[in-house]
């Protein structure tokens, strides 16, 4: 039996090699030989992964820069937002609540397209896809991070702020030197959650053409027809990055821990 190879974009998993193995395949139960084929082609798959690995790992650097940049931006915006939402003027609080609702309520992909293809084109802003990815992920993350910090601030005893004021600290000093150092410590577990979510969300930016892990895996896969090994490799790289990141944040949590003082619920 001879099949024609499908078009490149819509290539099914085995479409290319079906021609070579087609004659030996029993016709009635097509799934079982597929399993054999996957196993049979393991060495080939490994070679495909090895070949693509340096290229994918370069992509993981791009992914990491996007994630770290977005987390940094999210932190820089999220911490003041949280403070504003807890201690701010009622009008400011309402504004922040709307901000959070806005950035948590619209899907990432919609935002990326809106920003990159919409706003940047409409206002003639010359930003790279890479920069847009960091900005959009950072803005969305700031909404989530603000809620992590807000919860941590609210969990601190009221007396901490009172005692700081009683010493003659302005509210700004009390927040900077007393409230935030404690609240940020309590935020680290929530923060490591945010990291793993951002890491995975960053894969969506491939839709803008950011050369991160997913984009590169997709690029190689569609050209070599090695979809299974390449997406598998991409998934493993993401898993490793998640593990490394959460481990790192766990270490930070240990280091920042105050002797004899553990966050509530621990």
């Amino acid at each position: 039996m001879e099949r024609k190879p499908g078009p490149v974009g819509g290539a099914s998993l085995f479409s290319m090699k079906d021609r070579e193995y087609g004659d030996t395949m029993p016709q009635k139960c097509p799934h079982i030989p597929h399993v054999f084929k996957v196993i049979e082609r393991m060495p080939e798959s490994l070679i495909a992964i090895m070949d693509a690995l340096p290229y994918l790992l370069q992509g993981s650097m791009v992914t990491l820069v996007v994630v770290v940049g977005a987390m940094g931006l999210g932190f820089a915006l999220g911490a003041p937002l949280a403070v504003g939402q807890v201690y701010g003027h009622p009008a400011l609080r309402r504004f922040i609540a709307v901000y959070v609702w806005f950035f948590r309520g619209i899907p990432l992909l919609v935002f990326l397209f809106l920003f990159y293809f919409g706003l940047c084109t409409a206002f003639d802003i010359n930003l790279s896809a890479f920069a847009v990815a960091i900005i959009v992920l950072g803005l969305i993350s700031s909404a989530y991070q603000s809620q992590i910090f807000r919860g941590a601030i609210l969990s601190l005893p009221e007396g901490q702020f009172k005692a700081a004021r009683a010493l003659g600290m302005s509210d700004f000093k009390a927040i900077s030197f007393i409230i935030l150092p404690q609240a940020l410590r309590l935020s680290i577990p929530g923060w490591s959650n945010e990291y793993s979510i951002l890491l995975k969300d960053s894969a969506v930016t491939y839709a803008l053409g950011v050369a991160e892990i997913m984009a590169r895996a997709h690029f190689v896969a569609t050209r070599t027809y090695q979809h299974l090994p390449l997406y598998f490799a991409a998934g493993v790289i993401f898993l490793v990055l998640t593990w490394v990141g959460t481990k790192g944040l766990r270490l930070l949590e240990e280091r920042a821990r105050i002797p004899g003082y553990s966050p509530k619920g621990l």
Partner: protein
Amino acid sequence: MTAPILRIENISKRYGKKDVLKGASFDVLKGDLKILIGPSGAGKSTLLQCINFLVKPDEGRIWLDEQEVHYAHKRDLCAYRQKVGMIFQDFNLFDHLTALENVRIGMVRVKGMGKAEAGERAVMELERVGLREHMQKYPAQLSGGQKQRVSIARALAMDPKVMLLDEPTSALDPELIGEVHAVIRDLGNNGMTMIMATHQIGFASSLASEIVFMEDGRILERGTPDKIFNHAENARTREFCSKITELYGERG
């Protein structure tokens, strides 16, 4: 008669429909130890917190050293609070800082002193309350009595003119009350001006220059410990004093 160091006039505070303070006034002379007594809900704690504006009074004026405090001006308010030390019932030490850092932070962040200089002063204050060897410990590693002594050292390091003590020993185990009382007694002997709310009648009567009996947001009666505890004019004062004497004994 010398001018009072602290003068409060007609302080009132209401929460919703409830009047918590109905116009409390008194003068405090330098070196006075004024003790506020009265049942829970009498407004003692609210009054103390109104004095340094942790609770904003609805009415009333306060003078420190004959200068009226304009608490709406943030800078004036912060300057005033530096001169009025506050001791809380539940200590409120900064949980992320060691005992030393707790005492030092006000000097560094509020007074703008250098870390080294402030550190030396902090060690001195901790020594004064007998905690020099515990200065590297975090609040969670200290006993209640030690925490309260650190908080006293923290307030003293700011060189306050007046100290406000809001039931400083009522969250403590009976065994630990003595060590805190000793520190307060020592402060009194060194001429510190203090206003303290407490239920420790024995301690109060041995040290107070004046006892102020409060109930229901009002000052009902005031006088020397002997007058309040033995010859009170108001029937309610007598009733309260006899009950509390039974509970806490003659000696604190």
